[in-house]
């Protein structure tokens, strides 16, 4: 991991009516890292992802990607520039086959318009192989289990060939074995494909283990930032979110 920032979040504020979902949030995401974002329910994690990917326009502040101001650009543009998000609530194209789902990513992603259908199919197949869905490629997405649908989200996102992947609670609802499988894939995508990964996660031991760095959000504010170990020892993080210091450190060690 080098120290070059790939995404800069500068002073971002997002309000929903009177509710301040993000309050002057500033931090950097570095190229090649796995960044974990944690925080209680309603802390603004999904909202932050939505601001980065253009689903919401921040009321204030700016977001830069590779030095380019992407604040307020439409989501499809941001995807084509190289940031893709998976959804907390999975959104498969139900009447498409698994392969077609992933092909949409390839056809409209970073190389949108410059890629043939055959190339798109190759890319999609490669990514389905990677997440272990290759055997289901010709099945309709509606028939997949939740666990498989989450992997499909990932394969679709990867097929868009992004530089940065935002995973919104990709592990929620998975059993321990599936969590381990997913973590291996996340590490692989990071190490071998060189993708920068930002993951919002409540499964504490998982994120503390896989992430290089952690950012803690609390009531829309940036509460803390640091290595998993540092963060787990911060008193304010423990009171706000982790609850118990010994427990917190156990997450890191596991």
């Amino acid at each position, binding site marked *: 991991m080098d120290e070059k920032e790939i995404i800069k979040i500068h002073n971002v504020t997002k309000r929903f009516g009177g509710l301040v979902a993000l309050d002057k949030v500033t931090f950097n995401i570095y190229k090649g890292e796995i960044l974990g974002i944690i925080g209680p329910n309603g802390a603004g994690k999904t909202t932050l992802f939505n601001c980065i*990917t253009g*689903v919401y326009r921040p009321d204030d502040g700016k977001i830069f990607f590779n030095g380019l101001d992407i604040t307020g650009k*439409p*989501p*499809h543009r941001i*995807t*084509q520039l190289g940031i*893709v*998000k998976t*959804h907390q609530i999975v*959104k*498969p*194209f*139900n*009447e*498409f086959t698994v392969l*077609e789902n992933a*092909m*949409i*990513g390839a*056809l*409209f*992603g*970073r190389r*949108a*318009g410059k890629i043939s*259908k055959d190339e798109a199919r190759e890319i999609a197949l490669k990514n389905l192989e990677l997440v272990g869905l290759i055997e289901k490629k*010709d099945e309709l997405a509606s028939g997949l289990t939740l666990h498989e649908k989450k992997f499909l989200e990932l394969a*679709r*996102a990867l097929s*868009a060939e992004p530089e940065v992947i935002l995973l919104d609670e990709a592990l929620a609802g998975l059993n321990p074995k599936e969590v381990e499988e997913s973590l291996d894939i996340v590490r692989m995508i990071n190490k071998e494909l060189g993708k920068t990964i930002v993951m919002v996660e409540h499964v504490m031991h998982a994120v503390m283990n896989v992430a290089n760095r952690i950012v803690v959000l609390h009531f829309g504010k940036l509460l803390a930032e640091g290595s998993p170990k540092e963060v787990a020892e911060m008193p304010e993080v423990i009171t706000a979110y982790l609850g118990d210091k010994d427990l917190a450190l156990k997450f890191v060690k596991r």
Partner: protein
Amino acid sequence: MDIDEFFKRPTPLFILILLIVILIAKLLRLETTDYLITIMFFIGIAMALNIIMGFAGYVSFGHTVFLGISGYVFALLVYYNRDFANLMNMYSGIPIFFIALLAGGVSALVAFLVGIPVLKLKGAFFAIATIGLDFAALYIIKAFIPILNPEFFGAQIILPAYALAYKDNVFVAMYITFALIIIANYLIRRSRFGMGLLAISEDEDAAEALGVPTTKYKLISFALSAFFTGMLGAVFGLNSGGVDENLFNLAHTIDMIVMIVIGGIGTVMGPLVGSIIYFILYDTLLVTYPEFNLVILGFIVAVIVLFAPRGVVGILRGKQFMGKKLRDIIE
């Protein structure tokens, strides 16, 4: 695409056969020219609406507005322009096709402009907004057409005899328009654009998040759909010898929607098969049970929709045929 590949896919084959059958029926006089023009009109409007409703998943309930707009534009062009009127009976109907293109273009423009705000609405709200468009256009026509010329009493434009075309010329214009619409459907369905539209109909947010320019794609598909619907309105108006407010009648949209739904949404074959079934049912029931043809038709449609929510083609999708998934073959 080489010729083998072409015949492996039944949809283009079916389109080709349909076009040849209509041509043979015309040349051998198996059916009246009027009947053939009407069936092409019916299948055509279903296929035209299919581009926005079947592919992008937006139910444009006021879609007849484009039959109306282009029908009136065409009628006015021919009524007031002697050059255009003279062309009606020249070059075997090709000029009619080109004037219909022009009239369709007006509908496309209206759809594009109206689409910018209206395509932000979803589901029933979009449908209702398009009904509003239909009513608004109808009121404008009813208010202004009679002012234009006292002969347009009740907003009815009856084309003068010199501006009417031989049936054969109307047939040619309708035939080219019809072929254009179904071939366009097929090409869109197979293209990247078509995949993007289908992704929009499945989940618009997910499509946008994966890079599909949803706003642009919806606008283009709405404008294209309006364009083709408009062309049909223009040629059909000419065939009827003029236009009246009935072109705006929402009953036409119901026909279009029913044809798409009984055939199978999201496909090309679906509305094609659906509209043929519907037209034949409609036509035979009208002749055999003129009093309650609509009741029977409604009952049949309800049964089909109840037992096959994704239409006749939809039932076949999951089935196997000679070791291949029918879904792959049909689409």
